[in-house]
């Protein structure tokens, strides 16, 4: 049974607020653990789930580093997107499973943020099959993009590239991180103490500094884009 915390417990619990400990943690403890017990970079995008609701309205946060992040490079990116608006609408229409999508220029990246239904690879493949030329123009702007052109003829590699540049989605239920880390390291049947969770998070953020916190929040869960269009009489 728990009782009044001992002086040692109180001391340890107070460490994170102490300046000297924060300095020590940043410069010694974390680098030591990164060396001793590194975590693999976890893959991007939503994970497959048995529940159908989890496979609808899934989030993509595609972060593509700009070749030229200067204002000139940004202006070029803005023009490419603007010039292809019609194609992008046509693509959305033909793919049929996208709720919404948008481009951002953020930091040194061109980002494509979207909400789609179903499997990620099908979404990307259908998009490329419809408007591959738009993605070819985008690939001109981003690092590593040249090797993937034309995207229609490099479809498998393009899908892998997008997957690698889609942000890792931190599990909505924190301890699920243990399972994801174990799976990535090919470990099974391991027990974890919830006390180690903060350390596991820190190590994971070392491997995946940019993430999506959770899989996103849905105001009308379990509904597909086509179901919304149908219910509004827009035809699907």
């Amino acid at each position, binding site marked *: 049974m728990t009782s009044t915390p001992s002086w040692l417990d109180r001391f340890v619990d107070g460490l994170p607020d102490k300046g000297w400990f924060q300095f020590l943690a940043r410069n010694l403890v974390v680098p030591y653990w990164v060396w001793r017990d590194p975590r693999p970079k976890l893959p991007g995008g939503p994970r497959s789930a048995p529940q*159908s609701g989890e*496979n609808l309205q899934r989030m993509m946060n595609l972060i593509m580093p700009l070749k030229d992040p200067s204002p000139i490079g940004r202006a070029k990116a803005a023009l490419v997107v603007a010039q292809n608006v019609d194609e992008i609408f046509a693509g959305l229409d033909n793919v049929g499973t996208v709720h919404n999508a948008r481009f951002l220029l953020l930091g040194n990246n061109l980002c494509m943020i979207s909400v789609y239904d179903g*499997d990620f690879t099908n979404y990307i493949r259908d998009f490329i099959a419809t408007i591959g030329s738009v993605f070819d123009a985008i690939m001109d702007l981003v690092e590593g993009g040249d090797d993937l052109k034309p995207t229609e003829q490099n479809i*498998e*590699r393009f899908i892998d590239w997008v997957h690698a540049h889609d942000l890792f989605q931190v599990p909505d239920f924190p301890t699920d991180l243990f399972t994801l880390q174990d799976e990535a390291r090919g470990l099974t049947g391991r027990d974890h103490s919830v006390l180690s969770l903060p350390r596991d998070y820190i190590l994971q953020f070392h491997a995946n500094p940019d993430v999506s916190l959770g899989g996103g929040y849905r105001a009308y869960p379990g509904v597909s884009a*086509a179901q919304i269009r149908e219910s509004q009489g827009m035809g699907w």
Partner: protein
Amino acid sequence: MTAGYLVEDEIGIVQGNILRGYKLPYVRHLVLEVADRTAARAFLGAAVAGDNPDVPQITTEQPDRPGVPKATVTFNLGFTWQGLKALGLADQELRSFPTEFIEGMTRRAAKLGDFGDSDPCHWPSPYRQPDRVHVIASVYATDEGELNTVQDQVSRSFKVIGVHNGYALPEGKVYFGYKDGMSQPRFVGFHGSGPRDGKNHRIVEPEDPLGTVLLGKPTRLRDLEYAIPQPDQLGRLGTFNAFRVLQQDCFGFEDFLTSTAELLQKQGVADRLVGNEHAKLVYPELKGRDALREVIAAQLCGRWRTGMPMQLAGILKSNPDAQPSNQFDYGSHALCPVGSHIRRNNPRGGEVVQRIANFTRRLIRRGMCYGHPLDLKRPDNLERGLLGNFIGASLGAQFEAVMCDWLNLGLNSPEITGSNDPLLGANTVETSWFDLNLWTEVKPKTIEKHRIHGLPRFVTTRGGAYTFLPTVAGISYLAGLRS
């Protein structure tokens, strides 16, 4: 000009059972581990050359020639990614294969609906150790004895870690009682000229470009090309296969038909089931609840258990001897429920949410039954089901795409999204549903939905592997590896 077609030299190197199915009554799939890569490579070389009486020769696609009898025993090989690695394929070449094939079927389980009882952690040996599943050798024969001969020959060069025996049921049926394998892709420039069937009827399903199955040929998505694994000799004109061991709960299925028939009678809607009007044409001998069970079976599948598509059963009015055919499509007033097995897996020309996906996710299916014979009058708990092969140029764009978005989830139509395939889907009793088609009570009669709940999972995955089916030129390349 001929890129979309196969010249004779190309046809002759493609392995058999891909473009056309063998019509042989027995199969044995041998799951093999490469224990000695030198011995395995020597076997592959001899299997291509056909010059060693102790090694079975690979069967290739051969045009029928008058006077040349058809093979009575055939031999074909599929390689997993682990198998290619075990044979000594270079790292750079191994990496040229698509991700889903590299990962293998067990790591794609969530996408394939292999969870719960179908989770790979419940699969029996040898699939518990997917890294040891290297090659699947498939032997078809007219006679079971020949299967043993080939197994003996193979076991001298490979370690046999699994054996699956399959057989054809009479009348082309599968367990659950349906006539199966009715709709298969037909290929441009291969299955005869023009979209006509054997009786010179126009086929509603267009012929598929060869790139649907053979790597390096054009696909239906105009400019989209699937990568050819390297080197070219290994990858070109090869294809991928999802081999699945699918256990079927036959008694559970028959019980479900009975309980659903009784439920519909109790609900007072049984008389309005779409298909009632054809039941007496398809099954003149059945009455009452027995006939109703068949109507439900037809709605779940989209075909009557005789193989007759729901869409076409009306033909029997004028021609009681009409045979099931493929000459149909789904319009806005189709009799066949949107969620039925055949419609959700192959929507043909019907409207789908993924507008460009019509006819792009076609699969070649080569299945045989396995397990203990079924006697519906004597319930048992014995295992039986289907040894399925689902073949296509891209596992990701075809097999997996169908499995994760259409067969389960039902993303192809807003009317079925959130439901799974009634026959094959990853259903759980608590959440599953299916919309049967009923005729409305008011005239003019139109179709309305009637939702039933509580479908259990009728098909459980018991094993499987993704394999690559190279040409004999590709197998020669593997035989010649030296590392």
